[in-house]
């Protein structure tokens, strides 16, 4: 019952001032065990805020991040799952599933979390799952119209992961849920 928050592309302060209030009220410390952040926060204050929600924070470098010490990619093992993290601007074409799958195979992970497109996506293919949490602030993107603020919460329980997607549509928080199961030896 490990709760992992996947969030990214906040672009604070350049393109957005802050997280939406409704999102912020939901994100309280104590519930979440890990935070994985795709990048483009961009400033240290946002990093500190995320750190306050959960001490276990994993973050990769987006092209607008002001802290250059973040890695380009990262792999984390949580429970039975291996998670891969990458901002996504390095993978061209941006948002292309096949290219991301290539990256996933390179990193050898079950779940790849990447961003940059500011649009929520969750794909399942034979090699694993690719999740894009979108932009938590709904920041402007040159490749996506009508960006809705969104983020993803994963509930990892043994061999099963439940993905809760939180989107702010027309001022209301909408939640969706997707189940993924992993067979014991093979990947998803």
């Amino acid at each position: 019952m490990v709760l992992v928050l996947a969030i990214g592309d906040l672009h604070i302060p350049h393109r957005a001032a802050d997280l939406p209030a409704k999102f912020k009220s939901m994100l309280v410390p104590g519930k979440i065990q890990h935070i994985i952040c795709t990048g483009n926060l961009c400033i240290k204050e946002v990093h500190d805020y995320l750190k306050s929600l959960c001490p276990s924070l994993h973050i990769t470098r987006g092209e607008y991040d002001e802290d250059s010490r973040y890695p380009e990619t990262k792999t984390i093992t949580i429970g039975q799952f291996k998670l891969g993290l990458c901002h996504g601007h390095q993978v061209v074409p941006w948002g292309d599933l096949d290219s991301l799958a290539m990256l996933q195979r390179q990193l050898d992970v079950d779940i790849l979390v990447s961003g940059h497109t500011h649009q929520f996506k969750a794909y399942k293919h034979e090699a694993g799952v690719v999740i894009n949490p979108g932009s938590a602030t709904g920041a402007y993107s040159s490749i996506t119209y009508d960006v809705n603020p969104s983020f993803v919460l994963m509930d990892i329980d043994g061999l099963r992961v439940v993905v809760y997607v939180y989107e702010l549509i027309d001022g209301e928080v909408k939640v969706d849920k997707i189940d993924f199961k992993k067979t014991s030896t093979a990947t998803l």
Partner: protein
Amino acid sequence: MSPAALLEPTTKTLPESSLSTESSPERGDVGSNRGFWDLRGVRWRTDLGVLPSSSSVDDVRRVTANTRRSYAALRRRLLIDPLIPKDGSNFPDLVMDNPLSQDPDSMWGRFFQKAELEKMVDQDLSRLYPERGSYFQTPGCQGMLRRILLLWCISHPNYGYRQGMHELLAPLLYVLQADVERLSAVRKLYEHYFTDNFDGLTFDNSDSAYTSHLKQIPQHVEGNNEIQEDQVKFNNLDELDPKIQTIISFSDAYGAEGELGIVLSEKFMEHDAYCMFDALMNGSGGAVSMASFFSPCPLNGPQNGLPPVIEASSALYQLLAIVDSSLYAHLTELGVEPQYFALRWLRVLFGREFALEDLLVIWDEILSFDNSRLNSENDLETNFEVLDSSRGAFIVALAVSMILYIRSSILATETATSCLQRLLNFPQDGNLGKLLSKAKSLVNIAIDAMRSGPPRMSNDGVHEHVKPTGFRNHSLSSDAASSGSPLSVVRDSYWEEKWRVLHKEEQKQTSPQKQGMGQSQRKGWSEKVKMRLLRTESDPSSSKAHSEKMGPSRRHVRRNLLDDLARQLGLEEETENEKVVCGNGGSEENSSIFSDPPSPVGDVNDNEHENDSEQSSVASNILVDEPEAEPESKPNPEPEPSTAADSGNAIREVDENGPGPVSNGLEEATPTKGVENEESVGKPGLNLKERIILSGKHWFWKFGKNQGDGFMEKGNDPTNSSLVGRDQKSDVASSGADVTSKEESVNQNKTCSLKNLGQSMVENLQVIESVFQQEKGETGHVDNLSKKALVDRGQMTAMSALKELRKISHILSEM
């Protein structure tokens, strides 16, 4: 759920060994179930109301099965995993039921609450009975405990989980485990009775049906000849020892309700433990529910707004006051609120005070008392909810008897901290039987006292709260140390008046003297101290003897010490001596019983000392001459109590007894001193001072007899005086110190013959009184000069009186 790990601790002693046979049938209501007194689990379940008290095995089994079923249902309902989708139900509204949902009623909200609870419970469980870790720390047992506690807390959200609940649950589980082990022991012995008896016959594989019944006997022979003979003898179940019989019928898999009805069952230990725990916490509809001790808010309406555990603590103190008011007075003077220690005692039913075996015996007793309410009528109100049942009364009585058990060491304490230390480190090797029998004797007192005591519950609603208010106020006062508050304020009006008069007088006085300045401050303090001490006089008569010595708080305490059981002479003396030596400067604590700032008390002592200047100096001189006096040349903080103690005790005893009848005399005597120290304050104030002075006098020569260390103190005169820096003789301080130290040292009691001596002492004091009274009459508000004059005059008269006293002390020493 109950892995074999539970049966590991074969080295653990079964509770039978520590069973107290005294507890069984007298109080039992139901004869037959009382007979299960070697099956603690069954007995406790009956006492708690989980099992019916009927004698029929079938009934017992049926109820057992029902309780287990209910627990299983509860568990299924509450420990559900939120991830598992409910069969056939639509997806719950995700907006409400997502993990980040703020809604506390959502599945996830409850999940997180449960996680919180679990964290708290685990914290406590990991520290449960580490000395018995072989059983309690095994994962199986811990898992059971955790589940039980979680389920109970979830189903009683208004209580939540409080530390201590695990300690209540642990012995219950232990007892069940012991029963199961006994069952397996019996099973080994009487194995052939435990075989599956479908039709009352046993079938052997090789033989045909009708001969098998007879033939099974030799086949089940164990290697032991004894067993073989037993088995041959007891063919029939009925011929067995009835206890064994019950065990067997309880564990028959084919009795009523089948396996679920097996009363001693390892598989259902968790269920049974939960039911017992629930019954214990709820009180089974009786008066005492342990859960109430954990709740911060009062359960009953308007009667008192106190948390039930505080109320129970005050009931404890009230019972103590009735039974042993001197001890009660001592505790209240120290400022020891009952809930400091009673909270722990009551909340875990003494689980932290005794070893597990002893605790089981104690719980046997507690649970054997009925918990039903004694007051069923609505118009009668008990003062204390906890005493509304005999079980509650027994719990309170047991607490009181525990306090009485360590009476002597409590009375030896001078500070609240040390007193609490003694109370909270109850000796574990105590004589349980004595403790329990004393508690039983107090139960009736408790019940009667609560009914027929000052709270006249029958008619006058007003009276109901008069006396308990007094006690309740006492126990409720948050700052017991605040002047004037801790003591019983029953006769408030009278003493309040005196105090206020005193206060006014003090305020009128100017204190240009250096001494005066400090004094007036201290006077105010000393006045308060005196008032406080005086108030103790309003306590029941038995405390009067002790409260007579209205000296400084310290003296008062010492009197109690003397009067009661023997104490550690050396320790007390040493501490006292040392403290006195350095304490006169006013910066230290004079091991005052009050947690008030030590300096005022020290100042009070100083004042007293100064007041007693002539007397004390005389006394000290006298004491010096005593044959038993040790060389005083060097201040020796190490007292030699043994030799002097005896005589000291004698004198003390006299003092103790003497003042009893002499209280009035004391009152008159005090004015003498009062005049010296304080300006003439007014009669009530003088009375107070008189007391203090007189008592000081008593102490002086008392101690003079006793302790060598007291004499050592005299050697400290110079130091003391320098510290004090008074106008008056420096002797005073040291002598005062001596007195106090001596007081400390005297511990033992003497025979009543000493009372006679006390009487003569009193007469002498009265002489002094009269002298002082004359002086007092002459002086109005006094300035420095007049004060000095008074002092001088007082000194003369005091000296003469002191000589008389010395003679008495000589006599005593020779005894």
